[in-house]
């Protein structure tokens, strides 16, 4: 017995010496690994990155925020409520099952059971299958963002996810806590299959031999994903050559990466706006638009983007970034200390006042430092800010309770659309409809509400854009919130990786198309 153990140990040691073969292996280090293998369980940036590896959506975003055909080759709006999608015919799932319209219908229906996706797909009704490769996707009301939403329709293998698993539970179950089949099994159409997963430790993806997209230039045959949470360790792993690609890169290490001969730093402007909301219910001074304007004018957000964010953020004057429908070129950052002081004087508050503030300290890039800079800037117009920061695990409950006059929040529109910002951050808070769910400023303007709702159902895109721009203008004039910047996404990679073509505003690097030289 002892001998067997010794020999097996020796054998294992020998095996571990044999180098792992394989042409192009990409060693990837992210701050966290995907929480689950079920693409519908959680709506988060990390999960969507995973979904783009293992699954394919009907359409996906390009770098210039246009739609690119994926599983749908083309689409047309048939009427106010319907868009017809024509599907690709040569697609296979990882299980070997062919992909048809039935799978799309299955995917759409399963969203209704997902706590996270339910809200996004609320307007969708039972789709109509025309034939194996044609499907009509229908909504209750005219819906302008149907195509935006189609970027979330990552086709699931209906045969694979139907039936009962070995625990006797239905395979299509989508649950948050405890066991489900989809949490640990996948069959998508994506460029990569999951071949190994130890949650929180390592995940291995291998290229799917029957992948439909033969035109993709991507040549990575294997991805080894390791989560490295600690910023300094992640950067060190790249610099030491232990991994090939990391994201995110902390701003304080940008210089280091740029100077290093073996790695490149890539950044891409993102869509997450960092703001501070001014609570008008708690603080009567903030009900005065002049005071709010004074605060916005006192904030040098260009300086914050330059100094604290090391130039890796785009200073903002409005909610949605360039490329979004509601973006209005004329709404610039407004730093002007003299004007701020004048406005305070006009409001009769040149002596200032005291205000409380809360901000997270591990949610957004440099969130704590931004909050500190903000407090320092307000002291110049005699507003004394008592700042309290806390980890994100505690922050959101506090945020909901609104214990402070000034509260920081960052927001990324998950439909890549301007309307979403207003819906959650600036509409009058209403518990029943869920509008203004994260509007802790309690800013409330009936006109903004009306416009936002009308934009939701407006399918004429030009008309819709002008409505959204009008909203941005009103929020700007009302100084509804303090805008800081849109965070850039940052990636560090070895020089032989052609990263520039695969990154985008959404922070979904399309690794399937990555070329390793």
């Amino acid at each position, binding site marked *: 017995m002892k001998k067997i153990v010794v020999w097996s*140990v020796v054998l294992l040691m020998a095996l571990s010496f044999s180098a792992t073969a394989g042409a192009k292996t990409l060693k990837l280090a992210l701050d966290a690994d995907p929480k689950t293998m079920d693409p519908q369980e959680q709506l988060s940036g990390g999960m969507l990155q995973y979904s783009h590896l293992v699954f394919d959506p009907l359409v996906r975003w390009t770098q210039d925020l246009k739609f690119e055909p994926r599983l749908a080759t083309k689409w047309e709006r048939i009427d106010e409520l319907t868009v017809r999608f024509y599907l690709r015919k040569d697609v296979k799932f990882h299980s070997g099952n062919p992909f048809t319209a039935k799978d799309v219908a299955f995917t759409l229906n399963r969203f209704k059971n997902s706590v996270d996706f339910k*809200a996004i797909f609320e307007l969708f009704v039972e789709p109509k299958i025309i034939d194996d490769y044609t499907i009509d996707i229908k909504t209750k009301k005219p819906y302008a963002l149907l195509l935006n939403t189609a970027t979330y329709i990552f086709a699931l293998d209906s045969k694979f996810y139907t039936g009962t698993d070995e625990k006797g539970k239905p395979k299509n179950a989508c649950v948050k806590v405890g066991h489900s089949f989809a949490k640990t099994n996948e069959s998508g159409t994506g460029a990569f299959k999951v071949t190994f997963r130890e949650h929180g430790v390592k995940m291995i993806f291998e290229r799917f031999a029957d992948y439909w997209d033969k035109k993709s230039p991507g040549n990575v045959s294997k991805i080894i994903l390791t*989560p490295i949470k600690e910023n300094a*360790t992640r950067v*060190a792993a790249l610099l030491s050559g232990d991994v090939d690609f990391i994201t995110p890169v902390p701003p304080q290490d940008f210089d280091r990466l740029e100077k290093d001969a073996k790695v490149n730093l890539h950044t891409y402007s993102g869509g997450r706006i960092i703001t501070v909301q001014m609570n008008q219910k708690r603080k009567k001074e903030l009900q005065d638009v002049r005071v709010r304007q004074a605060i916005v004018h006192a904030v040098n957000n260009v300086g914050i983007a330059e100094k604290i964010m090391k130039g890796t953020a785009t200073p903002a004057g409005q909610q949605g970034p360039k490329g979004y429908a509601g973006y209005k070129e004329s709404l610039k950052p407004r730093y002007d200390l003299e004007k701020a002081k004048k406005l305070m004087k006009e409001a009769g508050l040149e002596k200032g006042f005291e205000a409380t503030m809360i901000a997270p300290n591990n949610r957004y890039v440099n969130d704590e430092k931004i909050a500190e800079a903000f407090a320092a800037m307000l002291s110049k117009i005699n507003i004394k800010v008592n700042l309290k920061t806390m980890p994100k695990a*505690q922050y959101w409950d506090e945020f909901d309770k609104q214990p402070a006059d000034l509260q920081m929040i960052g927001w990324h529109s998950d439909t890549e659309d301007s309307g979403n910002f207003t819906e959650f951050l600036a509409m009058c808070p209403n518990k029943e409809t869920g509008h203004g769910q994260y509007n802790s400023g309690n800013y409330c303007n009936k006109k903004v509400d009306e416009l936002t709702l009308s934009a939701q159902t407006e399918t004429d895109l030009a008309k819709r854009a002008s409505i959204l721009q009008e909203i941005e203008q009103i929020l700007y004039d009302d100084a509804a919130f303090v805008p800081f910047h849109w965070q850039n996404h940052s990636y560090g990679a070895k020089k032989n990786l052609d990263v520039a073509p695969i990154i985008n505003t959404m922070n979904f690097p399309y690794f399937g198309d990555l070329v390793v030289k």
Partner: protein
Amino acid sequence: MFAFIVRRIIQAIVVMMIVGLIGFAVKNNIGDPVRDMVGERVSVAEREALRDKLGLNDPFVTQYFRFLKNALKGDLGISYFHNKPTIEVIAAKAPATLELVFATALIILLVSLPVGVYSAIFPKSWFSRITMGLSTIGVSVPVFLTAIVFIYIFGVELHWLPSYGRGETVDIYGWESGFFTIDGLLHLILPSIALSSIMLPLFIRLIRSEMMEVLETEYIKFAWAKGLHRKRIYMVHAFKNTLLPVVTVFGVEIGILFAFTILTETVFQWQGMGFMFLEAVERSDTALLVAYLVVVGAIFVVVNTVVDIIYGFINPMVRIAGTK
């Protein structure tokens, strides 16, 4: 003797109950696990429904007794993040931490013994002076700084050693070991040296002062007078008597070493229990958090109880003290 053992065991059980209660009280203040489970868009009502389902809305006492009832059956709940029983998660992470602590303890012993003894015998030599100087610095530099400096010197600049993780592991009857692959051993070097940097200076100093004290005693002087060989005096008479207090302190410090693994493991992305604990705090995975506290508490209580009982056998004074 029997009464003493029973008393110690009852005390241990009380301590465990208190540990569980404290863990449970802390858990409600660490954050809402549901927040980490769902996206930002999810409505308040949906979140409440999920909290109800998880039993997080029940009164504190109800939750605590449910927890106690399950804990007695060996069920410490399901981790919200890992979606597995917390015991399984902890068991899977334990080998990494145990191996790290073992390697560290080995380094501490192998280095501190000869160095401590040497500097006690030759307190005025340049080597002793340098080690004493370095040990002062060693005690005062925090372990996460040492770890990061190591990564930058040996990983990034010199490319000698890997910078993160455990490397290749071998599965030996469910124990994921890094001891049997070259890769695994290479990965072990930096974390274990970094971790030993907190205790090593302490032990060198402890051994040195204990040994110096022993060298001053009457029986050593007598041994010199008897004309015994130098080696015999140092190694047999003096060293043996130095060891006794050192072993006692070593037992206590090993426990503290476990606490320091939290920092070391986080910096090196070492997938052990300490790393898991910190992640659980950040994700408000409260179920895992409480389970960790209970398990670690249990280990400490068991070790201490056993040590106390053994002491009782060796030294009757311990048994009598406190009985009156």
